[in-house]
């Protein structure tokens, strides 16, 4: 509606830092995936494991934060951001097209995985489901995700977070260079 251009990194990065700082000054802390534990506890997972027996009500503010994050995404998508493709490096576009991602450079996200046609593609559904499971497993195993470790943890100069972030990156590189070239053309 407002047709704003996408924000450059030097606006996006500082605003993310400001959100983290504001949460700390409000007596909270910035970390998204701890909500997974909270949601499992609410759903009654405390019956299965000690890990989920904790005072989740003290964490319910974080669910409000995530609710806002989803709402903010919708506001930006439908009211603020100019509808249009993510302008990618032409080399990246070529690489992705060679893996059958035809809408690289002309969409916001690849429709084969995120578009409505994914619902009728069993392999795409399986990949998304498996991806979600791995994200959830990894975030709890590492005791944090990109927001907790890369932003909160690195900002407070913590070694475990640096190691976790290096691990995230190695994982991403491995999938990008060795898994996706086989997986994406099969979708």
């Amino acid at each position, binding site marked *: 509606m407002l047709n704003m251009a996408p*924000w450059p*990194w030097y606006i996006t990065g500082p605003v993310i830092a400001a959100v983290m700082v504001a949460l*700390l000054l*409000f007596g909270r802390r910035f970390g998204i995936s701890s909500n997974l534990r909270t949601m499992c506890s609410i759903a009654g997972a405390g019956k299965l494991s000690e890990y989920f027996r904790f005072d989740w009500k003290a964490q319910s503010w974080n669910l409000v*934060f995530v609710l806002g994050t989803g709402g903010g*995404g919708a506001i930006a998508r439908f009211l603020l*951001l100019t509808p249009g493709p*993510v302008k990618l490096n032409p080399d990246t576009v070529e690489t992705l097209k060679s893996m059958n991602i035809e809408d690289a450079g002309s969409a916001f996200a690849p429709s084969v995985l995120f578009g409505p046609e994914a619902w009728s593609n069993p392999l795409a559904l399986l990949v998304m489901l498996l991806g979600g499971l791995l994200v959830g497993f990894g975030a709890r195993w590492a005791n944090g995700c990109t927001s907790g470790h*890369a932003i909160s943890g690195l900002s407070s100069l*913590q070694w475990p977070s640096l190691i976790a972030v290096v691990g995230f990156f190695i994982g991403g590189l491995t999938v990008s260079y060795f898994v996706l070239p086989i997986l994406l053309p099969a979708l």
Partner: protein
Amino acid sequence: MLRILLLGLLFGITLTMGEVISWFRIQEMFLFGSFHMYGVIGGAVALGVVFNLAARRYGWLSDTGQPLDIHQYEFG
């Protein structure tokens, strides 16, 4: 709680406006095609480090007078 919701809204708007949630941007990062994502993460972390060092040095507290809730990650 309203301010938490508003912060969440700002965070969601930022991730979207900065295209950080685009699968394409993330893929471009791993293929080393653009500085964008590195600038976003590096910029946020650099400013976060400055804040944390200053908070430690000057003993900044949260608005309720408590020490800042900096989670101490442990090797486990």
